[in-house]
């Protein structure tokens, strides 16, 4: 069964239709890259998946469970949304770390708050927090920041901050991890370390959706590339196929424009 089914998602801001009838599916462990020029709707699509925007139409299924259906208000209740958005994790372009907490606390905070809702929290508080801390430390180690755990965000480089943000998103064990242009706010020499971490996640068999402008990276890491333009999916397919041999005129134009810029 597909881990994610997106059916006919539509979203407008005022009179501007940003997403027009978006549909795609993903299998568990698959990595999907979404490419396209600014304003094509890529980010809005990710925000819809993470319930930061409410689509005007369509439905979203995770593991076959309908987590959102525009026609069914019962799927949109605030209390439900909070639980269901945990299927997804989101890494932001601008990191959005909590500045007042250390790297370690940034990774732990959400887990600690969720644990407070467990019935056995009071009785086992110490053990629960210790376990959350242990997992957080392991995640920071995994993104190569075990020596930076006690640093505050302002003491970290952009690349390090983004790696903390990735660890933070992983801490809640999302089924699908989304990246919204994770390297766009970084200096060119810092993108490598972040892309390396994302690559290492692929070898862990994580299901990921990556909105990116890094074409080489998208080609290497993805199982499927989606090209969006003007709020629709113009073309999707295997990365080699789509990038080396695009079928649609708009895809060709987009890729050749990029090629000129990079040359």
């Amino acid at each position: 069964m597909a881990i994610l089914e997106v059916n006919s998602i539509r979203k407008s801001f005022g009179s501007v239709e940003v997403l027009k009838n978006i549909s795609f599916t993903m299998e568990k462990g698959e990595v999907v890259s979404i490419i396209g020029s600014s304003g094509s709707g890529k980010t809005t699509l990710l925000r819809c998946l993470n319930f930061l925007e409410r689509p005007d139409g369509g439905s979203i299924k995770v593991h076959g469970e309908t987590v959102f259906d525009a026609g069914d208000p019962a799927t949109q209740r605030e209390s439900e949304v909070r639980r269901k958005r945990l299927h997804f994790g989101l890494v932001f372009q601008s990191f959005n770390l909590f500045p007042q907490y250390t790297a370690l606390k940034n990774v732990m905070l959400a887990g600690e708050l969720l644990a407070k809702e467990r019935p056995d929290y009071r009785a086992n508080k110490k053990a629960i927090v210790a376990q959350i801390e242990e997992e957080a430390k392991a995640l920071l180690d995994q993104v190569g920041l075990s020596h930076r755990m006690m640093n505050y965000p302002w003491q970290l480089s952009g690349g390090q901050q983004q790696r903390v943000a990735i660890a933070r998103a992983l801490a809640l064990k999302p089924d699908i991890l989304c990246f919204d242009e994770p390297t766009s706010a970084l200096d060119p020499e810092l993108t490598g370390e972040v892309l390396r971490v994302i690559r290492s996640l692929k070898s862990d068999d994580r299901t990921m959706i990556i909105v990116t402008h890094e074409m080489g990276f998208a080609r290497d890491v993805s199982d499927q590339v989606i090209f969006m333009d003007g709020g629709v999916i113009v073309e999707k397919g295997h990365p080699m196929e789509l990038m080396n041999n695009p079928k649609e005129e708009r895809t060709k134009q987009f890729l050749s424009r990029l090629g000129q810029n990079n040359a």
Partner: protein
Amino acid sequence: MQLFLQQFPIVVRSLNIGFLQTMKLFFVTLIGALPLGLLIAFGSMSRVKPLSVFTRLFVWIVRGSPLMIQLLIIFYFPGIVLHQTIWGGGEAGRFAAASTAFIINYACYFSEIYRGGIQSVPVGQEEAGLVLGMTKSQIFFHVKLSQVIKRIVPPMSNEIITLVKDTSLARIIALQEIIWAGQAFMKSSQGISGAIWPLFFTAVYYLACNGLLTLLFGWVERKLGYYKV
């Protein structure tokens, strides 16, 4: 000089009593206005249009008119216009009226500082909390509040230092605070008459108090200086 040394202890004793009343008004205003200001801030940010319009109108009126006039209206209006004094007589009544006027006035100023502080937290902070499954109130208390406090300490310290000095306006309804106590010696009090220096000397009390507050706020700022927003 001889005369001054004779007068000094008498004046200081009298000013101390007045300053006690000044401090009482100061703290009562803070205790009332700090939380009330937060309520007004939420009111003015409310998505319920009538509520936010009403709140902003109220804040405009209170901030837009002199505190001295507000004091006079709150103190005299019930008696003169409604023929029903609600403040009772004497110093206690004057204090209740002055506190009410100060709390309302300062809550409005504080509310605008709170609103600025809350709205200056980047929207990405809330979104990061949301995608991590936090509730709105968890986001407010665990993510935003510290950042809001850090941002509002400088403007709040400004406002609170102004409050120390503004308490002198309560003189207009004859509250027996420190200005009133100093002024008494200009006419005649405790065998001293025609002395203007006690009134000037009250400034020392304000200065000392605001010196302490400046140190306190400096300490708070340093406490929150471990991170940057």
